[in-house]
């Protein structure tokens, strides 16, 4: 169901309402273990963080907000355990946050819940990450855009709005392309949208301010999932490394040819 575009384009752009979708994921250094029944991640001892791709999106949203005004809202679909991650987004600079109180089992369910948040908020721009590093779906940005009837740019490595439209770059195999789109739109952020060095981290003032910023808990719309995990396991470990004498590289070539059969 397409959402009507703002009637006053200029006003809409000078006051851009941005929604940043935040996925709450295990820290990249976390040792991944599964529960003894193999049905879920064993979260004990795991530190959770803002999905790294979403950090690029949040930073770009804050930059745009400084140029254009408006608001930046962070949203996560999850139970109460995700709230510290949303508070971190508030500490980095988001103005307010929404938690949709559901425990999704698949990215289409997430996309449908997010679509209902978008339809209630008159957003001009929705920024997701290109992928969550936990379940590696890479589904939400384009599914959400299709539900809304909006354009999508993913993986998005550049975004510059001007007068109700935008130029957005996306990574393609072996290169990149620049797209012209009308807003509103959905982006799937990747490094390049902002550089690593531009990423914002919370400071003390931000952390203090975040405590009193609004974090609204919204009842789920009741979207259903299309799939669910059945079981998890760990990949088989590698057999022991064979060390090769640096003076005998022909030995390596021989092994790659005869043993590994890759050349």
């Amino acid at each position, binding site marked *: 169901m397409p959402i009507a575009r703002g009637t006053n384009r200029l006003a809409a752009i000078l006051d851009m309402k941005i929604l940043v979708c935040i996925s709450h994921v295990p820290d990249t250094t976390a040792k991944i273990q599964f529960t003894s029944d193999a049905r879920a991640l064993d979260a004990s001892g795991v530190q959770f963080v803002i999905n790294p791709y979403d950090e690029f999106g949040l930073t770009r949203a804050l930059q745009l907000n400084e140029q254009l005004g408006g608001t930046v809202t962070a949203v996560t679909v999850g139970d109460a355990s995700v709230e510290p991650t949303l508070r971190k987004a508030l500490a980095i600079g988001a103005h307010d946050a929404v938690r949709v109180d559901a425990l999704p089992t698949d990215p289409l369910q997430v996309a449908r819940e997010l679509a209902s948040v978008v339809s209630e908020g008159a957003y001009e721009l929705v920024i997701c990450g290109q992928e969550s590093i936990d379940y590696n779906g890479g589904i939400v940005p384009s599914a959400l855009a299709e539900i809304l009837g909006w354009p999508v740019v993913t993986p998005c490595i550049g975004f510059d709005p001007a007068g109700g439209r935008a130029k957005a770059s996306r*990574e393609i195999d072996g290169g990149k392309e620049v*797209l012209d789109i009308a807003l509103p739109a959905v982006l799937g952020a990747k490094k390049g949208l902002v550089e690593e060095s531009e990423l914002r981290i919370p400071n003390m003032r931000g952390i203090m301010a975040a405590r009193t910023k609004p974090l609204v808990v919204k009842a789920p719309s009741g979207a259903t999932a299309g799939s669910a*995990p059945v079981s998890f396991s760990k990949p088989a470990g590698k057999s022991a490394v064979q060390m090769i004498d*640096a003076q005998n590289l022909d030995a390596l070539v021989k092994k790659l040819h005869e043993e590994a059969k890759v050349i």
Partner: protein
Amino acid sequence: MILVFAETWSGQFKKSTFEAVQYAAACATAQGSQAVAVVVGPASAPVESLGAYGAHKVLHLHGPEKFETAQYASLLGDAAKELNASLIVVSGTANGRALLGALAVRAEASVISNVTALPESYSPVRVVRGAFSSKGIEVCESSSARTVVGLVPNALGVKGSAGSDAAFEDRNVAAAARATVVEQQLASGTIALPEAERVVSAGRGMKAPENWGMIEELAQVLGAATACSKPVSDIGWRPHREHVGQTGIQVNPQLYIAIGISGAIQHLAGVSSSKTIVVINSDPEAPFFKAADYGIVGDAFDIVPRLTAALKAHLN
């Protein structure tokens, strides 16, 4: 009916397309069904070749020239509904991955991405996928009558062609695009990372961007794509598109050669499913050796040129 998106690239099919067609054909055989390959775009695409990889029928939709997510999702989604497809197979190239979510919505299907093997069962569809950036393996089950399956390129490989002639159908189509491609920049002569069979990757141990000549030479001799660790792309020594790992491109080649890369957990997360890993590092304690098949302790500046020469001699 099994539908497979036969992606074209500059009017040609990539290896990943043939891999996806073979996957769809194997699913069709297992189910006593048929595989229909859908080609969108250029009239020049060599559609005859798809039969050899097992497509029973090729549906060639003439219309849009360049990939646009919403437009392709609508064309493929409508075809899937018309043919009452139970499975829609898409290779996980950059365009394929962008397409998955939109296609699922359009086709009224569920979607499972990052799939690394043929389904364990078909009703319901149950399939193995990578999760937690290769730190976990997930069995996932669809609860819909129609499922979009996103394949990891190279996960199955392309086996010799065994199929025969396919039936052909051509149609002129139109579908609204929601974005216009105004510019495309392709790095000429490079091999795209996600589907590369061999990758030569280098890290901060190379000291400076001007030292990449020897990396490129080694890659060239092997017909490999070049890649790098995250800090190397962050400081601008190499383009971002070469950054591999948990927050970069995930690769799945036959051969991955890591030079001057320490082997941090985030780097390993994106490369550990490579079939054979060779590590060259001056530090015998570098963690990457634990994840390697073959290791050489030594100075890259000494070893890489000699390895290039040895490989050249072998390959000639």
